[in-house]
């Protein structure tokens, strides 16, 4: 998936750079598909939940509380659901539903960002792979930033460029976009922009 960079500069002292490998949904069908897949995720999620509800209907969902369970289970959809739930092997079904639930919450893309605020510091963030967790962030105050550099390193069978922040007192540098590792042109744009924002230096 192609990585793209979005840089925003709401004020001269603030800059935010976001790289992402998500598709950008420019055309109308792409947008429609994007919302459709949310709908699909919802349906699948509801399906898995109702499957397990049907499996445990005698334990938890037998009394009529504010939901009339007995009418739900005796409806035509409820009867077929109960039949499927009772006939399938539970171990297989449990494993499959865990995988499906993970798939429902899986984002399918990675988004990494760098937020630079002059006089305050910079914050790097890497999105989590699922919708369940927040992005992992790291804030580095200006006083601890020694330098921001672009360098190369071996990764797998390749040599890749990376943007790194040298932090005072730490033996290892903080890599800014560690998962996506965008190409040199993008890194140079981020490097120029962030240095300009931090130090007001002419690039």
């Amino acid at each position, binding site marked *: 998936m192609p990585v793209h960079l979005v840089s925003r500069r709401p004020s001269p002292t603030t800059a935010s750079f976001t790289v992402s490998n998500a598709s950008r949904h420019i055309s109308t069908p792409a947008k429609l598909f994007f919302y459709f897949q949310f709908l699909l995720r919802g349906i699948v999620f509801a399906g898995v939940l109702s499957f397990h509800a049907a499996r445990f209907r005698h334990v938890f969902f037998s009394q009529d509380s504010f939901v009339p369970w007995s009418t739900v289970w005796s409806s035509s959809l409820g009867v077929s659901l109960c039949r499927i739930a009772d006939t399938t092997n539970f171990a297989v079904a449990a494993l499959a539903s865990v995988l499906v639930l993970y798939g429902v919450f899986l984002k399918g893309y990675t988004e990494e960002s760098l937020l630079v605020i002059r006089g305050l510091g910079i914050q790097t963030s890497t999105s989590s792979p699922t919708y369940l967790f927040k992005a992992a962030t790291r804030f580095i105050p200006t006083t601890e930033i020694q330098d921001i550099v672009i*360098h*190369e*390193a*071996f990764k797998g*069978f*390749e*040599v*890749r*460029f990376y943007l790194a922040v040298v932090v005072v007192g730490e033996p290892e540098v903080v890599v800014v976009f560690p998962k996506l590792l965008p*190409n*040199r042109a993008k890194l140079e744009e981020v490097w120029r922009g962030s240095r300009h924002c931090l130090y007001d230096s002419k690039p």
Partner: protein
Amino acid sequence: MPYNIAMVSDFFFPQPGGVESHIYQLSTKLIDRGHKVIIITHAYKGRTGVRYLTNGLKVYHVPFLVIYRETTMPTVFSFFPIFRNIVIREQIQIVHGHQSLSSFCHEAILHARTMGLRTVFTDHSLFGFADAGSILTNKLLKFTLSDVDHVICVSHTCKENTVLRASLDPLMVSVIPNAVVAENFRPLHATNRTNDRSGATPQIQPTPRPIGPNDIITIVVISRLFYNKGTDLLIAAIPRILASHPNVRFIIAGSGPKAIDLEQMLERNVLQDKVEMIGAIRHEEVRDVMVRGHIYLHPSLTEAFGTVIVEAASCGLYVVCTRVGGIPEVLPQHMTTFAKPEEDDIVLATSKAISALRSNKVRTERFHDQVKVMYSWTDVARRTERVYKGISGDISPQEFYGYYPGEIQEAGSDRIRNFSLIDRLKRYYGCGVWAGKLFCLCVVIDFLLYTFLEMWFPRANIDIARSWPKKLNEANNSKPERERLGSTS
């Protein structure tokens, strides 16, 4: 026309040594001539990743398994993906491998030919033909060199050796000697560097006192104490030399497996007060040890070039050495006394050298300036550049290889190695009955691997690295510029 050159070898800094400093010096001088040079070597302890040295020399320390004496595991193909990536991102045109024992270098040459790049190989050492290890190495060398574009040897003896070992066309082998940085090897009584630079005002320098008949003469030996460096000869010769010349002292620097034999000899003959052993020294300290002596003794049994004797002569030492390998080519007659590699002759030659010094027949104080004129890395770089031009077709084959009217046309046309697979296979097939087929198999697999890599890691996805910014005055390779460069070093 500037080239993008990749120097590939297992041997590079931080490990000290002759090949390592050769690669470094040559690369720096080539950069001065406007080329772009990178070095590919394996990762050393504490030295990994991508590094820059002085003058924008980029070094890739590829993480790789090291098996024996800093040589990597010969895996033939596993180096290819990372090598291809580096070559593409640095836009390399010429791959220059160094040293026959480096598996990195052989693999790089094979892969570079598969990728359609020009290749040069520099041989720094001599090998035998008889023992099993040599036969294996020679076969491997033949494999790599069947398809190399040009070979550089450090001396004519080395060239002869390589031509025989790899069955090469002698015209494809050039001889470019090593050089020394003469400024780092100045005699004790030389003027300091700043005075020397001005040149116009000759300083009154304190001339060394001539050696009297009873003055102590110090003989320096700096070598790794291995069998092939002639340590056994040294062990046999030292007591005899000291017996016949009471006013002689020895300084021996270096370490190795023969050090224990040497120490035993000293104890047996009670020579500890006349022979000083100072153990292994760093390359920067070599000069400081050398200037303590008057004669440099080099009893090596095999030597492709012998940079150390040039360094010794540059320090103003009279050189006694064995007439082996490329050594006789290195220094002019008046700086050296030659000996056969046997005990009696070494004793005789050393005695001759001592008496020559005592009678003030040798003007050792002039050696430094003479060596400075003879050996310079700038000159080495210029000659290497000519090789690059020759293989890239920037100078005509007639000019590069020489024009021989009686020559058969086919022999001449074969020197320019084309990249088509079938022609490459033909060259490899001639390597031997079984070896030829095996080598062809390797080449075919390498080619398939290359096409696979082109699909799996497309060229378009590889970032092109930025070149080190060139200095403006050195970008133009005009004639006065060349002369200025040539005169300063």
